[in-house]
């Protein structure tokens, strides 16, 4: 099946007073219809910028998309006129943000915020829009939806607000939902509820989903494919099962090893990734991960490793990807 979304060599730069930051530096990936893809990385790695680029919502004037293509359902979004892009945003591609409090309008009722999207994108009457809003609230599991429709965001808890965001995202039956850290601001038990809900609904309606997160654990249960970002680049990409079982980049390996796991015996000592997150203004020569890497070889400081095949549908941007597994065994 043809891909629903194909990002090719995307470059989004931020022009700051300290110089140019390559927030997204030549990123390529694709999402098939109905597929769930995770984009994993730490703060500042460019994962949110990459999602905002797809929506063409990169903050102006500092940010600009300086290169690449974003092919969505056969069209390059970067060549569309603003007016055409507006018809896609919310209708064909929807977004769920991290902070449900600040992404809902505090002075509009929940009902109005759902009907607003519906009325903007389809020729529905006020009555129809209201009916549909009710149906959506029911769908996302909000109790007493008739009453809730006329309430304001501050009357909702964090989890309930995130359900409303999901309802709004689903309202126009999009083909793709971008969820940027959808559960990071929520409690553990509510996180589980929201993720199960998102999975059930995207499966039910065949919506493709891109989950952006910093937590590899969160997506293990939900993702079909995982892309790991570091310092503006995708450094590893593989099927979910493959990447957790057989990581081929020292950063991914480090992330997996540094977190305590409930299903395994307690370790006496954790095995952290040493050093600091990369300083985007001052990246080292060669591989950005070099200063923190324990598998580095001479070549790493000279040439940036390209993202290349490292297994079945598995790509890694590491010069020692092939031997990483043996070295891991030796070092542990």
């Amino acid at each position, binding site marked *: 099946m043809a891909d629903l979304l194909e990002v090719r060599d995307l470059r989004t730069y931020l022009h700051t007073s300290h110089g140019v930051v390559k927030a997204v530096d030549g990123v390529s990936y694709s999402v098939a219809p109905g597929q769930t893809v995770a984009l994993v990385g730490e703060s500042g790695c460019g994962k949110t910028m990459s999602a905002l680029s797809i929506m063409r919502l990169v903050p102006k004037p500092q940010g600009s998309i300086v290169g690449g293509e974003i092919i969505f359902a056969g069209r390059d979004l970067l060549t569309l006129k603003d007016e055409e892009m507006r018809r896609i945003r919310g209708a064909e591609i929807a977004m769920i943000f991290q902070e449900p409090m600040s992404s809902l309008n505090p002075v509009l009722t929940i009902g109005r915020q759902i009907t607003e999207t519906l009325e903007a994108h389809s020729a529905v009457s006020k009555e129809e829009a209201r009916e549909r809003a009710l149906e959506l609230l029911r769908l996302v599991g909000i109790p007493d939806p008739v009453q809730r429709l006329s309430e304001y965001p501050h009357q909702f*808890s964090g989890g309930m607000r995130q359900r409303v965001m999901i309802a709004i995202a689903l309202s126009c039956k999009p083909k793709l939902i971008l969820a940027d850290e959808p559960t990071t601001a929520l409690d*553990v038990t509510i996180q589980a509820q929201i993720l199960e809900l998102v999975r059930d609904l995207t499966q039910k309606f065949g919506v493709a989903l891109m989950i952006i997160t910093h937590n590899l*654990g969160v997506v293990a249960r939900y*993702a079909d494919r995982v892309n790991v970002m570091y310092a503006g680049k995708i450094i590893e990409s593989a099927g*979910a*099962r493959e990447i957790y*079982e057989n990581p081929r980049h020292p950063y991914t390996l480090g992330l997996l090893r540094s977190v305590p*796991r*409930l299903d395994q015996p307690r370790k006496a000592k954790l095995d952290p990734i*040493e050093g600091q997150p990369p300083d985007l203004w001052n990246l080292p020569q060669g591989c950005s991960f070099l200063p923190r890497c324990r598998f580095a070889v001479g070549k790493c400081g000279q040439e940036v490793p390209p993202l290349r095949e490292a297994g079945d549908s598995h790509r890694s941007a590491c010069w020692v990807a092939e031997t990483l597994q043996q070295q891991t065994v030796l070092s542990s």
Partner: protein
Amino acid sequence: MAQTQNSTLNTQNSILEVRGLKKYFPIYSGLFAQRVEGWVRAVDDISFSIRRGETLGLVGESGCGKTTTGRCILQLDRPTAGEVLFEGQNLARMADAALRPLRRQMQIVFQDPYSSLNPRMTIGQILSEPIRVHRISPDGRRYEDRVAELLSVVGLNPLMAGRYPHELSGGQRQRVGIARALALEPKFIVCDEPISALDVSIQAQILNLLEELQERFGLTYLFIAHDLSVVRHISDRIVVMYLGKVVEIADRQELYENPLHPYTKALLSAVPIPDPLVEAKRERVVLGGEVPSPLNPPHGCIFHSRCPIAVEECSQRVPEIREVRPNHRAACIRV
């Protein structure tokens, strides 16, 4: 020393005891003639003790009262009722002036290393301030030497003393927060979600640092967190809180191997595991509903409104916390 008579626990072993601690915050109504309309029961009658040299983990969701408990122990918030015995002395009844010398022995590391360091002070000023305030001249040495020592203890370059917080990364700032807590050579540190605001790759570094420091200086920690996998890693014993109450207390291994309270079970099952194969086989207890408001908590057992095994009686009677297995207490009538 004000040793209370009904002490059943061995105070030799415990550095801190919390007995019947309550903290209610008033809700006011009216703009001018303010009157108290109700009370938020942030912490509602909890008891536990912390042994010398151990790490006690305190877990629960936001709003369960875990941070308030930490603040009440340090008397940053004064308790509404109950006792906080630090080495036998009841801090809850102590006047501020009497508390001050004791504060040296009890410090706190905050969650957010961005807002807990003064942006206008250099790292050196931040670290020497507690020493100046408490007028401790460390062995007659200069403050600068002590600051340099503190920085190297937490794994930072002593040259950082001249920098400002904004020049540091999140992980480095949290190291400064830890160094500040260590400046007065305390015995006891409350770590309030010390790694939640940090990047995943940095969290393990800070956890390892906290463990090293504990060993090196013989520290006792109250480790407040919401992440059960982190709490299991660092704690010797664990207290689980829900809506202002303690629902379960046990040793680490016991709690994870034999969780008794249905809330603890649900919390454990909500923790994601970074392995799709494990996750595929795993049964999830997804709790329905949300944490009720502490302004108006449910009657009977506070958890009954979300509990998968609740019976009629649960909504009528408040379950006592009792020892169900050796050294394992839970507040549930169904276990």
